[in-house]
């Protein structure tokens, strides 16, 4: 054992310790680490150990390249930041100098030492151990070539809101096929429910519907509404996606979208999706007149025929015989190279803030209800009225941050509520002339032309009260409060409690992740934050990629954002996908398992472990084989093989054992435990 540990290796290792300005050097004595490596790891093949201000700078990289060429280095260890940040940088530097990129190891002494430890001495010692682990590991590295995987030119976009629409259009316009899958009967998302969009106040439908029509008529877009993704298999470049097209009970080849079925259907149902509970729809319906596609769906839960077996009014009156009550769910399998998730958000359930009285006090509205109220195509034709449907409010209170910036509900800022509330204030003033109060914690109007809009609303005479509203109540204390809703608030600028009677309260509710966001994330093999938003690859530098290659995220699925940002993200995700498609193939980490057939006993222990079906058993030869095209490189089979016949590149047993010995300084300092015990 000792001889194995102490044998001098033929490899020539270079060690590079980064200061990262003061990020590492402020806590760790980087010069001492480099000096220690040069001295104590000399027997382990270290021929040079240097420290440098910024290893990732071009000068730092040139330093490594020069050493590879002049000193004949065969291995490189860089002790700096996380490999998730700069592994690629240093691999490319090695490659430029003629060294196989996989003979370079980046060990993290920043995220794992200097940033998390305060004891300078202990952190320095730990950094030495980490460097030692890296040196031992890299000695067992082998030259590798990345795997090249072809990219299927088709793309799946999940979610037909504005972000998904934008992504789909960008890709389709570039000439590549797109499948757009939407759960609801029509695309359009939340934006289709809005009346006006801030800060320009252009009508949402006027700017959205042309895009929806483009999607519906685009030769490269296959639109699948009233459909859900049920399974995703495969990997970047080659996903196999199963989509369930729910039965519409409408033959879309025959339907012309004339709308007679909707007109004649005798069953009226409260529409709590599109109309937010304020309006009605029929059992056969399109959510709104400009819906894309134009075909309606039959809601079989509420349809009289499905419940009682009679009626069939729509079938009798359809001029093209397009009603088909026998239609069944259809399962479709798609081949795609990349996936864009634009699954959007859910509205915060205002009933959770019990003291604001939503669903208890009639004239407390949520922001999405107000959007429908103020929408010219909405249930009141755009008349802003109280719940009775006729009374125009004389005073309106708008409460910001309902469910957001509140440790009882969501800590985050929902990003859109300030501007949304300002928009409401403007619309109420414009259409009813009512007195409008805005109750806010802070006003956040950070994007282009947003603060100008705030100034405009201020000048229009909206009253701003700074303070979190304590309660909305109908319990009057004074005659002037009779029949009103009273908003109890601490006005923090005036420094006193106020009771403000109003006719209507609008709760500016926040955005929440989709209720099923965790299930969706699991389906696509990505992760959610603890709040439930999809985690991007890097919060600043890679906001539309996810940690799973080939899966991108756009719009509110990634976090609360307004329309311009959702559109920008949709386009950005499309750009990333198009870049992939144009390259025609992608280079992947060669992390794969392989079986040494001479060692395989055919015990088949590994056979049941692979969820990707990459392991196949040859009955004739009684040996197992790993299909490298399907293998994802998790290494579970490697760990399970009792004969040690399966090995995994980049994470081999030898590499892990060596790194462990290095980390424990077993390679240089500590004698093996066996010695003391045996004698």
């Amino acid at each position, binding site marked *: 054992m000792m001889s194995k540990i102490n044998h001098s290796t033929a490899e020539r290792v270079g060690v590079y310790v980064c200061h990262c300005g003061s990020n590492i050097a402020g806590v760790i004595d980087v010069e001492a680490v480099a000096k220690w490596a040069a001295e104590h790891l000399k027997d382990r093949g270290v021929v040079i150990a240097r420290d440098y201000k910024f290893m990732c700078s071009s000068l730092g990289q040139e330093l490594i390249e020069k050493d590879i060429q002049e000193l004949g280095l065969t291995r490189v260890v860089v002790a700096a930041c996380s490999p*998730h940040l700069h592994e690629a940088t240093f691999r490319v530097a090695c490659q430029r100098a003629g060294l196989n990129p996989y003979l370079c190891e980046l060990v993290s002494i920043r995220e794992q030492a200097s940033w998390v430890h305060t004891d300078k001495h202990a952190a320095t010692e730990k950094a030495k151990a980490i460097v030692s682990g890296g040196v031992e590991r890299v000695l067992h590295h082998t030259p590798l070539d990345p795997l090249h995987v072809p990219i299927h030119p088709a793309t799946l976009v999940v979610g037909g809101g504005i972000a998904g629409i934008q992504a789909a259009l960008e890709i389709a316009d570039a000439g590549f096929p797109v499948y757009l899958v939407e759960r609801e009967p029509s695309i359009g998302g939340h934006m289709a429910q809005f009346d006006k969009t801030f800060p320009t106040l252009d009508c949402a439908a006027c700017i959205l519907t042309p895009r929806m029509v483009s999607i519906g008529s685009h030769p490269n877009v296959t639109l699948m509404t009233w459909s859900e993704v049920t399974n995703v298999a495969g990997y970047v470049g080659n996903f196999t996606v199963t989509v369930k097209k729910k039965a519409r009970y409408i033959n879309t080849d025959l339907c012309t979208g004339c709308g007679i079925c909707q007109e004649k259907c005798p069953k009226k149902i409260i529409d709590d999706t599109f109309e937010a509970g304020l309006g009605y729809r029929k059992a056969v319906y399109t959510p709104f007149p400009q819906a894309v596609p134009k075909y309606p769906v039959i809601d079989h839960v509420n349809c009289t025929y499905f419940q009682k077996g009679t009626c069939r009014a729509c079938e009798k009156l359809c001029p093209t015989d397009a009603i088909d009550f026998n239609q069944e769910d259809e399962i479709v399998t798609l081949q795609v190279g990349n996936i864009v998730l634009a699954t959007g958000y859910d509205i915060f359930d205002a009933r959770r803030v019990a003291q604001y009285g939503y669903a208890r006090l009639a004239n407390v509205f949520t922001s999405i209800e107000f959007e429908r109220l103020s929408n010219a195509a909405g249930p009141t034709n755009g008349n802003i009225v109280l719940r009775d449907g006729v009374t125009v409010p004389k005073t309106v209170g708008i409460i910001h941050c309902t469910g957001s910036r509140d440790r009882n509900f969501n800590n985050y800022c929902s990003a859109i509520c300030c501007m949304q509330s300002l928009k409401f204030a403007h619309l109420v003033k414009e259409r009813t002339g009512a007195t409008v109060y805005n109750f806010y914690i802070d006003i956040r109007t950070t994007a282009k032309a947003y603060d100008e809009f705030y100034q405009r609303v201020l000048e229009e005479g909206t009253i701003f009260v700074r303070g979190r509203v304590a309660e909305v109540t109908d319990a009057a204390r004074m005659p002037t409060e009779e029949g009103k809703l009273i908003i109890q608030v601490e006005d923090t600028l005036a420094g006193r409690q106020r009771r403000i009677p109003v006719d209507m309260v609008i709760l500016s509710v926040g955005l929440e992740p989709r209720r099923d966001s965790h299930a969706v994330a699991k389906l696509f093999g990505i992760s959610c934050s603890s709040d439930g938003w999809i985690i991007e690859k890097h919060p600043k530098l890679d906001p539309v990629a996810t940690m799973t290659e080939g899966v991108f995220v756009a719009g509110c699925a990634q976090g609360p954002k307004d329309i311009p940002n959702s559109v920008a993200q949709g386009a950005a995700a499309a750009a990333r996908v198009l870049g992939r498609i144009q390259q025609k193939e992608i280079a992947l980490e060669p992390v794969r398992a392989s079986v040494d057939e001479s060692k395989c006993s055919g015990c088949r222990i590994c056979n049941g472990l692979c969820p990707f079906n990459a392991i196949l058993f040859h009955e004739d030869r009684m040996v197992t084989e790993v299909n490298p095209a399907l293998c994802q490189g*998790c*290494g579970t089979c*490697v*760990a399970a093989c009792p004969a040690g016949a399966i090995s995994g590149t980049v994470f081999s047993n030898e590499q892990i054992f060596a790194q462990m010995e290095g*980390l424990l300084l*077993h390679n240089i300092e500590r004698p093996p435990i066996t010695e003391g015990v045996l004698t």
Partner: protein
Amino acid sequence: MNDTFEPVIIGFTCNWCSYRAADLAGTARVKYPPNIRLIRLMCSGRLDPTFVLKALASGADGVLITGCHPGECHYLEQNYKTLRRYLMLRRVLTQMGIEPDRIKLVWASAAEGVKLAQEITDMVEQIRALGPFKPRYPMPLNPSEVADVQPVAERGTA
């Protein structure tokens, strides 16, 4: 003695969740004791139980195993195999006369930097309380030795 004893812990992390949680702890400057040294695996399912034994044999006082939460495995379900191996390891360690609390399994998602740091802190205290690891029997140091391990009688006389 326990006042000066600084345990050394080897931590196995999953490339997709807990390694990123460790990165996040770093980015957020969350502090934890320097007694842990991390090894990155692609998946906690890569954890061969011999890694744990090897770590203890090579001088570690404890081993932390971390992976994605159940149901959130990047490779769909491989962390369930980790859980099975972990439970088996605890029994094996007990049979070997080693305190099973020298190993610990923690699920940490990429968002749980604070949680990971707290778990590491707790584990360091747990191992500190157990004291340094002193095996009662010699432990083979690499898998090739396991193959030609000597009979117990002979080894006893060595």
